[in-house]
């Protein structure tokens, strides 16, 4: 273990917020929105368990499980990217960012396929309470993945000139924090909407 990676793994002397505080304000606002969404889902589901169970029975598990794996892998790539920038391994770091975007694209493709199936079946926001929640939550999250990819792509693009490196990690950490938030929200969404019956 060389000195620089030691800094990353051992507890640093001062408490450190990974990324920009402004982004953390945004992240907390997003978490609040999703949190309220999830809890309202909980209330509605409790009131009409049969309707929600019936709706969930139309959801296959294979794609969402694959999607979870993809998002987790994307998150791991973001961590790797931050570490590599911290070690000034520029090319490898940018490869990790690229890989994160590949996993993200995979997620988007699977999700599009899943949503297209639902729309073809004539399901809309106004179908019933379960589909209202299913569509608003998954589409809203889908758009967050898109936004996350835009942010990662921006970091990947700006990283050309070597602006991120040891001690200059704020931009990457900010992007990574957002991506992990999208991942974190999906873990709850996956469990709640797809699996918990």
């Amino acid at each position, binding site marked *: 273990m060389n000195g620089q990676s030691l800094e990353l793994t051992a507890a640093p002397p001062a408490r450190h917020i990974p990324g920009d505080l402004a982004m953390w304000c945004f992240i907390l606002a997003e978490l609040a929105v999703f949190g*309220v969404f999830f809890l309202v889902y909980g209330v509605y589901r409790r009131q009409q368990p049969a309707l929600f169970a019936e709706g969930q029975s139309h959801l296959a598990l294979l794609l969402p499980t694959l999607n979870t794996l993809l998002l987790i892998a994307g998150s791991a790539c973001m961590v790797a990217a931050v570490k590599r920038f911290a070690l000034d391994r520029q090319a490898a770091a940018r490869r990790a960012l690229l890989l994160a975007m590949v996993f993200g694209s995979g997620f988007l493709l699977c999700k599009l396929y899943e949503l297209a199936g639902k729309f073809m079946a004539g399901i809309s926001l106004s179908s019933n309470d379960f589909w209202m929640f299913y569509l*608003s939550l998954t589409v809203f999250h889908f758009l967050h993945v898109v936004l996350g990819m835009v942010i990662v792509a921006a970091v990947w693009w700006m990283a050309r000139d070597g602006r991120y490196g040891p001690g200059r990690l704020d931009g990457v950490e900010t992007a990574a924090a957002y991506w992990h938030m999208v991942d974190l929200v999906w873990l709850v969404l996956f469990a709640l909407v797809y699996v918990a019956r």
Partner: protein
Amino acid sequence: MSNATVAALPASKATVNDQIKYRSQAVAKPYFVAAIGLFIGQILFGLIIGLQYFKGDFLFPAIPFGTARMVHTNLLIVWLLFGFMGAGYFLIPEECERELYSPKLAIITFWVFLVAGALTILGYLGLPYNVLAHLTGNDLLPTMGRGYLEQPLITKVGIVLVALSFLFNLSMTLLSGRKTSISIVMMLGLWGLAIFFLFSFVNPNNLVLDKYFWWWVVHLWVEGVWELIMGAMLAFVLVKVTGVDREIIEKWLYLIIAMTLITGIIGTGHHYFWIGTPGYWQLLGSVFSALEPVPFFMMTVFAFNMVKRRRREHPNQAATLWALGTGVMSFLGAGVWGFLGTLSVVNYYTHGTQLTAAHGHMAFYGAYAMVVLTMISYTMPLLRGREANSAAAQKLEKTAFWVMTLAIVGITLSLTAAAVTQVSLQRLSAAPLSFMETQQHIMPMYWARFGFGLCFFTGLMMYVTSFFVTGKRES
């Protein structure tokens, strides 16, 4: 440019005033004077309709309630617009560090707007509304008769032209000057204001869609782009009176308005619960508007923090008081009272009751009236050639602040009590009373509201008087 256009200004101001950095900033003064004049008119008509709530035939049939209310709300909008425009003409040159592109155009715009506004109000008062509509071309494109958008078609077109002239003037100034975050946010807000006003020309026959797009003006103004204007004005005054590093104030400004739009845009959905729109708006509107108090809370914390960290003691303490008051009252009025009725399960019972009126009064005063008064309080002494008003004048202004603010709190609490009675008797009760029977039970609250209205008017008169108080200047 500069010599020719500055010559258009009154000579006395151009020569003696060394308090303003750019002579053309002086065009803000007539705007602010007009704003205060129209504000007085707004409150007078507010008193008339406040009285009509318990003495129903007061001034009938000369000024029916609907007419007086229309004058009350339209004067509110117009005086706030005058305030925003004055603020723009003062703030943009100062931030851009150059003279206004065309002070002459600004003065012409002022008179056009004032005369058009006055004629419209006279039209409301002097003609039956349908006659006014007929004479002003409402048959060509019906846009009248919807809350806040009662203006005749030609007035609406006039507003667009005035706004374009104003925005052209400021944008040209900004383009060739220094670009600060405050001026950019101000301009974004003003452009947004003009753009969303265009939806006042959208009036589908389908009532649901009519109401849907009506909110694109009303909500996206007051819970959207106006908050950018408000944030920029507040930030500008805070930079001036606290001396805190601009960088710090500007980054908080961005963060606050980011939160405003993130919550407020889809928060529009809290108006889409019961007007014939699909049910999912109850979910979306509730979730997002539940978070709408957050930016207002941040604004309060921000204002107090900046004043606490101040690096100078600005002699204009009244302006600082107004700035802090804006932070607190906008949070209470827009944040807390807005939240009270915003969740769909609660709104089901409070929609269309006096709670809306309670929230409306405190939010409009706390956010927009107060931020314009903050700006006037800071700039008017400068425009009149002194850094700050005399101690005596400031003392009176601060007293006026407290009287007006506490009066609005009183009005809000009276109307909230009225709303509680109304909801319990007319909506929740097992044997609901009719609207008019319910109103009989609310009379004491309407009396109280009128009393607080008189207090407010007294405070406003003290405020106006403070402009005429001389006395020893503060050293």
